[in-house]
C-alpha cells in the first residue's frame, strides 16, 4: 500500500571527507563524532524529523559500516516508519551493469526509482557535512509559494570568504541569475549551502539528460544547476539565517566543537524546541572525582573526570585519570587519558588510549597546528606526540 509523500529527502552521505585525514579512515564523514554525543549526520536527520519530513534516503558509498549501524532502523530520529522512514541506499547492480556513484547527481539519478515510489511533488537534497539547525518545512513553503523548479538555500558570508563557496547572484526578488563555483571576484555574498529543493519532474528531467552526457562530472554544483540556469528555469535562493558550519576540515571541526562552549555558546544544543536527536550509548551519568577540575567544558554520559578538563568537548565514556590535563581539545568517545598525561590542542578519535605521562600537542598559543589521533590508536606511556602531528601517519 503506497501513499503519496509531499516531499522526500535525499541525503548524500557517500563522501570520503579526505581532508579529515585519519578521522575518516574507518568511518564515512557523516558518521564522524561531533559535540560529544552526536554524529555529523544527526543534524540533517534531526532537521528532517523536526521539519516533518519522514522519508529520507541516505546515499552511502565510502566506508558505510559505522554509518549503517548508526542509522539502523532510524528509531532515534523517529524515522522508523511503516511507510517511508529512513532508508540506506548503497550503489547496486542493475540489469545493465553496476556502477559506483560517480557524483552527487549520479547518486540521485541511480535512485530515481526510490523517489518515484513515494510520488513526491518535491525532492530535498541534503549533504552530511554541515552542522546547523534548519527548518526545511519553511524552505519548502517558500519553494512552493515561488513556484520554482529549484530552490537553493543560501547563507550570507563575508565578502572576503566568498571565493571559497559556490556563489549565487540573484535579483531583488531572490530569483537566481548566476551561479559561480568559487569565484575569484565574487559579485554576491550569497553562498550555496548545498541544500536544494527540486520540483520532482524538473529533477528527473535534468538528471536523465545529465546521465546521457558522457562529458558531465555528474555533480549538482558543476552540472545540474548550471544546466538548469542555462535553460532558463525559474530558480530561487532561500536565505537561511543562523548557525551553519562546514566541518570538512580538521580546523573547522575543532572550531565547531568549540562553538559549544562559553557563557553564550554560538551553537546551543540544549534548545528543546529543536532537539538534535542521536543514537544513545547506555552509559551511567558522568562522575567528577574528588580531585577533578572541570572548567568551560561539554561532557557527556559515562565520563569519569579525576584530572583536569578545560575548554574541551568530551564524548561518552572518556576517562581522564588523576593528574591528567585535557585542554582546548575534542575527545570523541571511549578514550582513556592516563595518569599525568597532557593533551593540548588536539582532536582524539574514538577508542584511543593516551597512556600515563604521555604528551599530545602543545598549548594552543604555541602550537603549530591541531594534533590528530585516529581511532583505536595507543599513545604509549611517556610518549610525545608533536603539535600538529597526525597519528597514525
Amino acid at each position, binding site marked *: 500500500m503506497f501513499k503519496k509523500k509531499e516531499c522526500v529527502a535525499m541525503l548524500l552521505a557517500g563522501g570520503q571527507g579526505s581532508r579529515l585525514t585519519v578521522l575518516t579512515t574507518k568511518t564515512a564523514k557523516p558518521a564522524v563524532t561531533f559535540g560529544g554525543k552526536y554524529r555529523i549526520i544527526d543534524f540533517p536527520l534531526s532537521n528532517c524529523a523536526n521539519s516533518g519530513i519522514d522519508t529520507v534516503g541516505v546515499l552511502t558509498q565510502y566506508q558505510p559500516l559505522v554509518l549503517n549501524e548508526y542509522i539502523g532502523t532510524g528509531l532515534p530520529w523517529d524515522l522508523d516508519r511503516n511507510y517511508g522512514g529512513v532508508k540506506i541506499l548503497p550503489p547496486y547492480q542493475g540489469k545493465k551493469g553496476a556502477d559506483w556513484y560517480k557524483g552527487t547527481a549520479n547518486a540521485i539519478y541511480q535512485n530515481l526509482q526510490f523517489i518515484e515510489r513515494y510520488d513526491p511533488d518535491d525532492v530535498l537534497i541534503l549533504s552530511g557535512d554541515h552542522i546547523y539547525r534548519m527548518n526545511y518545512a519553511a524552505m519548502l513553503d517558500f519553494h512552493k509559494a515561488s513556484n520554482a523548479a529549484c530552490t537553493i538555500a543560501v547563507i550570507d558570508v563575508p565578502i572576503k570568504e566568498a571565493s571559497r563557496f559556490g556563489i549565487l547572484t540573484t535579483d531583488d526578488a531572490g530569483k537566481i541569475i548566476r551561479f559561480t563555483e568559487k569565484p575569484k571576484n565574487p559579485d554576491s555574498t550569497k553562498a550555496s549551502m548545498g541544500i536544494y529543493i527540486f520540483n520532482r519532474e524538473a529533477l528527473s528531467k535534468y538528471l536523465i539528460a545529465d546521465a546521457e552526457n558522457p562529458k558531465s562530472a555528474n555533480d549538482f554544483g558543476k552540472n545540474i544547476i548550471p544546466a538548469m540556469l542555462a535553460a532558463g528555469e525559474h530558480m530561487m535562493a532561500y536565505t537561511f539565517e543562523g548557525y551553519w558550519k562546514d566541518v570538512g576540515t580538521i580546523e573547522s571541526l575543532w572550531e565547531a566543537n568549540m562553538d559549544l562552549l562559553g557563557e553564550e555558546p554560538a551553537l546551543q544544543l540544549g534548545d528543546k524546541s529543536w532537539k538534535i536527536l542521536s543514537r544513545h550509548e*547506555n552509559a551511567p551519568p558522568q562522575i567528577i572525582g574528588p580531585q577533578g577540575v572541570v572548567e568551560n567544558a561539554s561532557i557527556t554520559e559515562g565520563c569519569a573526570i579525576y584530572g583536569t578538563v578545560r575548554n574541551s568537548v568530551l564524548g561518552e565514556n572518556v576517562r581522564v585519570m588523576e593528574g591528567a590535563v585535557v585542554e582546548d581539545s575534542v575527545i570523541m568517545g571511549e578514550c582513556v587519558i592516563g595518569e599525568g598525561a597532557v593533551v593540548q590542542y588536539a582532536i582524539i578519535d574514538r577508542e584511543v588510549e593516551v597512556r600515563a605521562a604521555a604528551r599530545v600537542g602543545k598549548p594552543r598559543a604555541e602550537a603549530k597546528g591541531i594534533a590528530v589521533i585516529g581511532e583505536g590508536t595507543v599513545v604509549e606511556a611517556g610518549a610525545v606526540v608533536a603539535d600538529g602531528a597526525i597519528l597514525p601517519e
Partner: protein
Amino acid sequence: MRAAGLIFSNIHDASIPELTTRRTMASIPFGGRYRLIDFALSNMVNSGITKVGVITHYNYQSLLDHIGNGKDWDLARRNGGIKILPPFITAYDNAVAGKLYSTRLEALMGVMNFIDHCTEEALVLSDCDVICNVDLSRALAEHERNDADITLITATVDTAEQELDAKAQVPTFDEQGRLIDIDVYSGQTGRVEICSDILIVRRTYLQRVLAEAITHGRTSFYRDIVYRNLGRDRFFVTRYDGFFARVNSIESYFGCSMRLLDHDSRVNLFYRRNQPIYTKVRNSAPTRYLPGASVKNSLIADGCVIEGTVENSILFRGVHVGKGTVIKNSILMQDTYTGDHVRLGCVITDKDVVIKNDRELCGHETLPFYISKGQTV
C-alpha cells in the same frame, strides 16, 4: 533454564510517601538518570529474560511513561517483551472480592492469567525497592541444579553503611543452601545476610500454590506459602555479593544515593561486564560546565548547565545551577532549576523544582530536606 520475569511496581510504596504520592516505587528517580525499576528490568534482560510482566496498582502513569514500548530495555518484542499488568478487577468474578490487591500473594493471584500463559519453567519475581546488579543466569542455573521450588536470592548488608529495619528478613540455611528458616531482623550489626526480595519460583509450583491459596483464602506469600511449606518443599537460597541497597525511607533513599559517589560501589553497580543498567533515552545535550564552575565528587547526568559550585551531590538530567550557587550533599532531580547565589545542603528536590535567587536551604544527612515535585521556593 528459561525464565519469565514478574515485577511488583507498588509493593513498598508506603515506605516512602514523599516520593510515591504521585508515582509508583518503580518509577522513583535514582542515580542521576535511572528509575528504580531499571535495576530489576536490567537484571532480567541481562540474564536473557525476554518476557517481563509489570504488576501495577495505582499511580502508574509515570511508570507507563518511563517504560513506553520497552524498546530501551530491548523488550519491544513480537513474542513476549514487556507486559504491563494493571489491576484485574471484575464486578462478579475475582479472587480478591472486588478490592485492589494489598499483598504480594493477592497481586500474584491477580496475574494468574499471565502466569498461566507462560511456557517458561521458572519465574523471577522482583520488587522495586532494591538497587543491585545481579547475574540472574547464575542463580537460575543453581535453581535448576537444586531442582528447587523456590530460590531466594540473598544479599549482604553492612549495617555501618545501611540501616536495617524490622521489614528485613534474615534467612538461615544449611551447607547445601537449603533454607531452614527466615527470621525478622532483630538488631544484629556488622555484615548481615538478608533476603533481597528477588526470588525464583518454579512456574508449576507457583501455579499450584496460588490455586491452593485462592481456595483457602490465604493472603501472605511468606507466611502462607514459604513458612507453611518450609522443610517440606524444596526451598534454597543463593547469594549475591555485589552492590546492594534497599530504599525504605527518604533517609535511606538519600543514603543509598550517596553511596554511588563511592568509586567502588559505583563501579560495582554500573560497570559489571556484560551487565549494563538500561534506562529510557531522553536525548539531552551533553552537560555544559561554564567558566567559573567548580564541581567535585559528584554524579551528573546529561543536559545540565552548571555555572556554580557542586560538591558531593547527584544531579539528574536538565538541572541548572546558577552563578555563585553552592550545592553540597544534595540530590537534585530532573529539571530542577536553581537561580544565582543559592545555597543548598542535604536537600532533595523532586522533578521541576525551582529555587529562586539567594535562597538558602539546609537539611541533615539523617533528615534530608525534601522539596516536592514542581514546587517553587
